[in-house]
């Protein structure tokens, strides 16, 4: 976004905004990380085991612990790369 100010002269400018957005992306993704792994895979596993993953023989809690959480982790890093690299491109233009 070329309309944003490029200096880091004080609060509310590009750099502070960049860092705030970075933290926002990070906290959201970490929340999803904890929900998929420690939440669905551990804390709720016994309750989720009452259901099966549709169309398969996987009890749901077991599936999260052995498959689902890992798939979620890979996707979370993918999303992080895409979002952060885009954020970086927006914020670097004027400085070099």
């Amino acid at each position, binding site marked *: 976004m070329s309309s944003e100010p490029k200096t*880091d002269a004080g609060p509310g400018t590009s*750099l502070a905004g*960049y*860092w705030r957005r*970075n933290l926002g992306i*990070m906290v959201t*993704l*970490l929340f999803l*990380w904890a929900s998929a*792994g*420690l939440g669905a*895979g*551990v*804390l709720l*596993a*016994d309750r989720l*085991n009452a259901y099966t*993953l549709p169309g*398969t*023989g*996987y*009890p749901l*809690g*077991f*599936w999260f*612990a*052995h*498959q689902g*959480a*890992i*798939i979620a*982790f*890979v996707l*979370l*890093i*993918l999303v*992080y*790369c895409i979002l*952060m*690299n885009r*954020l*970086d491109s927006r*914020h*670097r233009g004027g*400085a*070099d």
Partner: protein
Amino acid sequence: MSVQAWTYLFVGLTFGLYLTIAWLSRVRDTRGFYVAGQGVPSGANGMATAADWMSAASYISMAGLISTMGYAGGVYLMGWTGGFVLLALLIAPYLRKFGSYTVPDFVGDRYESNVARLVAVFCAIFVSFTYVAGQMRGVGIVFSRFLEVDINVGVVIGMVIVFVYATLGGMKGITWTQVAQYWVLITAFLIPAIAISIRLTGSVLPQAGLGGELAASGGAEPVYLLERLNQIHADLGFAEYTAAFVAPWDKLNVFLVALALMVGTAGLPHVIVRFYTVKSVRAARWSAFWALFFIAMLYLTAPATAAFARYFMIDSLNGRTAEQLPEWFGNWEQTGLILWLDDGDGRVRYAAGEDNEVFRNGTLAAAELASMRAAHQQWLDTDGAAGADGRVRLREAGLSGPDRDIIVLATPEMAELANWIIALVAAGGLAAALSTASGLLLVISSSVAHDLYYRILNPAATESQRLRVGRTVIGAAVVVAGLFGIFPPGFVSQVVAFAFGLAAASFFPAIVLGIFSKRVGTVPAVSGMLTGISFTAFYIIATVFFGMERWAGIDPQGIGSIGMGLNFVVTLGLTRFFPPPAEETRRLVDRIRAPERAGAAVRIETAPSH
């Protein structure tokens, strides 16, 4: 061709490949030696990280652990992958922007303290040696089982190979060799898994096979594999395979162990240092993604291999007479990984209760085992009037059931796959062990030669002096690691929990707070690290070696989670009473937080104190 001939062929070919790569990527400066000249593309770096990360234990033991633990095996699956999310989001991009050679470098510079640097160096060396000892032993075991050479000869061959390519090419040689090793190990892991999945469930994808139905036999009603496995388990008195929270794996322990492994992974120096080797911050992020992607290939397949092997194991043993036993049983019985002590009915019974007849040798001496077998035979012959029931002794020694290492190593045989596939597994195991060992040796070398020698002892050292010290230390570390492999200290498997606990309780909070807080200064950070380390070390040493009662039943593998919490609490609690870091350090933090190329990137050559 026999299995052995195939194994010699594969091992010879792969070793030749590793040495060729090492020669092609030899280096002449410290930047090439420690961080591969920061010129590694992110995909290749991800692959190298994956090979570095997946050790002999991941490759050989993990599927076996899952196979015996069922649901609770998920702590290893989630723990050893979940850490990469923390690494990607909280650590990798920032440390790449900081742009140094080692983890102690960051800790020492950010907290303006050589004490902090020394604590970090000590942890890095301890964690790495703990790990590397197991790798060298793994190399020896693979050699002895597949090629019938002495374990020690195997260890020496492994030492020579690692020595050549690590001293010649440093990080650059190691990285490109690891890329090749990744392909060897993943092929060797996937081919048997796919072949077994097709055989058992008719599905090409092992992950779909695990959730799918068993291939119909004789018009019977189709049944899900996991459902059948749960039913077999129930019949034999085991807890259901998919049931959550079976003692001793209650919810608290599963949670704490999974968390400690995740955080420990994110704090392991040999993993973090991989992100120093790429071109840019953008590449560091992508390389974290590729690393986990390539790791997930194996980690999503291991649970399938585990369940398939569990099914084959029970199905091909239970109810068989000595004549009906499959061939693999005889092969692996010789190694002591699996034993059968009959109760007199002439049929094998593998069960959870006192009627179990399948055991493993463990660490019993050959003579002891032979005398026990003789006593058992006498006990059988005299209908219990004389001799002794060997089953009781083995059960009391905690040796019920086959050794878990048998799962990956013998599954191809259980499923009656071709000889070349069985040989491929051996080459894969060696690739996994060698790639991890070389990465760890480099961390040891950089900790001693860079952090200790150059940054603390002799800051005036020239480039060639530093490179010479680096190479010498790698050479010495290979020898020490080899000695650990030849004379394994009995506690190696127990101290691996230590490696993760220590990394979780020391590095992780120090690095994360160093990046996300500009206020935390030297004293709080060092106090926090020391508190975390001492607490974690105390609990593990006391419970594992001195028989201290576990607190609330907490497994020593999970104590790192609490050590990490203590570290955070102490550091943040003390922060307000101590001065903030110097202006220069705060600018350093600003710089590593800034978007790439918004300011001048930190270059190693021009960074302060380099």
